[in-house]
């Protein structure tokens, strides 16, 4: 592998890593609010991408497609929370896994029935002309993906650290009962976390669709990789989710260079299994992993 190739793989790793980071962030937001792992997380990303493509097909400009997709997936998430999550908050891990797996089936099949089986794409936000960087070519869309991810992560950081409602959400993550005693509405925090997850997932989906095509079936793989990223970084740790996403993206891209593109998708799961073997708390997992 030459240094130019190496740089090229790093670029591609950072791009997909951004999407994994956002997906992992979606897992983390829901997990911290509810202790639920949402097995339909990847399908939310898929819904974002597919909705944007559908809106673009109606002739809307790209920025409107972006906003439209974010709003649609947010609404889906709020409805999903009301119907399937709220009744399950007290029902144990097994019921939560099964219900969210069921939701993933619903989202996937609904997308297939509405938009068909074909993989679809979007035009890049600002042209396809690559920018040469030190012997490698950088697609302008990469800058959009990485830039938007940075804006979202920094925005989330300030929201959770500085705003009163953000602090209320964090209080619920630590101890819902005590948070309630302080007058925080737990159910509002949960709805809000789902809406925010929907928005971030949709954004990730719209950003990646111009680079890698989207189909009704893309969600499950994205979800698995997002979970691998979140586990790698330390489940429940938002910084870990971002770090895990980028590490996973880069390792995967280099793996394609070293091994073969056919095994690309297996790399994430090998990493997931290794993390679970060696250090289930993840890289940044200062928290104790929930043992049963």
């Amino acid at each position, binding site marked *: 592998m030459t240094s130019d190739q190496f740089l090229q793989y790093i670029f591609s790793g950072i791009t997909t890593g951004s999407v994994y980071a956002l997906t992992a962030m979606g897992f983390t937001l829901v997990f911290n609010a509810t202790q639920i792992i949402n097995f339909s997380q990847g399908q939310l990303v898929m819904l974002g991408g597919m909705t944007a493509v559908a809106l673009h097909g109606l002739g809307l400009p790209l920025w409107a497609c972006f906003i439209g997709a974010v709003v649609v997936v947010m609404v889906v998430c709020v409805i999903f929370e009301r119907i*399937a999550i709220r009744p399950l908050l007290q029902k144990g891990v*097994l019921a*939560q896994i099964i*219900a969210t797996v069921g939701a*993933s*089936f619903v989202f996937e099949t609904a997308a297939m*029935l509405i938009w068909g089986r074909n993989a679809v794409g979007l035009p890049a936000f600002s042209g396809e002309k690559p920018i040469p960087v030190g012997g490698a070519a950088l697609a302008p869309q990469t800058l959009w993906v990485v830039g938007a991810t940075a804006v979202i992560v920094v925005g989330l950081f300030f929201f959770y650290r500085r705003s009163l409602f953000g602090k209320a959400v964090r209080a619920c993550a630590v101890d819902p009962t005590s948070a309630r005693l302080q007058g925080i509405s737990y159910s509002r925090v949960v709805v809000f976390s789902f809406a925010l997850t929907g928005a971030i997932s949709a954004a990730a989906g719209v950003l990646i669709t111009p680079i890698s095509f989207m189909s009704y079936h893309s969600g499950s793989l994205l979800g698995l990789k997002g979970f691998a990223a979140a586990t790698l970084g330390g489940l429940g740790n938002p910084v870990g989710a971002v770090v895990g996403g980028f590490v996973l993206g880069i390792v995967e891209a280099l793996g394609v260079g070293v091994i073969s593109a056919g095994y690309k998708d297996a790399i994430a*799961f090998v990493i*997931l299994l290794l993390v679970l073997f060696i250090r289930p708390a993840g890289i940044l997992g200062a928290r104790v992993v929930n*043992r049963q």
Partner: protein
Amino acid sequence: MGSYLRKHAGYLVFAVVVMTIPAYLSDAYYLSILAFMATKFMMAMGLSLLLGQAGQISLGQAGFVGIGAYGAAILTTKVGLDPWLAMLIAALLSATIAGLIGMPTLRLKGYYLAMATLGVNEIIYILIVQLKDLTNGTDGITGIPSLAIGGLDLGGPKAYHLVAWGVALLMLRFALNLSRSRVGRSLRALHRSEPAAQSLGVDTSYRKVQVFMLAAVFASIAGSFDAYYMNFVSPDSYTITFSIILITGVIIGGLGTVWGALWGTLAIVILPELLKRVNEDITNLVFGVLLIAIMVLWQGRSRGLWQTIRARRPGGSGGGAAPPGAEE
């Protein structure tokens, strides 16, 4: 003898009914549906033990089915082994892989096993598609021999029916005995409360890994049977989607007893046939909605679809308070 008959009446009646079907049914279409039901029933039984008794969930059973099918296909066509021996080796491989995944993840919360098994299912699928020298990639493997005992060919639909359902019945007997044994009681105990089970001397991690390996073996054997029945394997059957359909079956059937696996198998075989008349593509949508609905309406922990509906009806008596797995 009399008490034995009373105790196992349900099982004996079922066994006699199933094993006499070939005597009066010759329709090739229905026999093939029953043949696939036998193997789906095997997969569902393993999953039912894991989910219903131990309260652990695997979203990757199709991966083990794939190991069973491809193990049988490769070992018979490329190595030339006897089909039964190939089935056994594939099952051992499945058990080993399940043990390796189970040991680290079953100490953690339930969703780690769920995600790890999803990942393993995905890896197995990728390997099947990519290891073209061994698996012929997406083309699949043809020319897999049928089962035979001595010189007796068991490839015909009626003979195969007897063998496949015979093995399924043995597995059912084994699973029923297991759930009523000390092992079954300790599994249900750890399902209710792991610390309590531990404090009573149950090695909970060991028990969970054991039952997970057993579920993998059931799935693997079922996969081998399918391969010998169709004489052909291709990757499409071993996706995560199929794993989730199996989960749906076990949930619809009810987790309380291993018999739930039978009702669940009926559901995942018959529902798609019915829904086909409306629109084939909505099957998974219906399955997804059922999964959510059963979980949302779930009040005990042992109920399937039928008991859930009964319990929700005013005045309905669904289920009662019998501990799950207590009755046969």
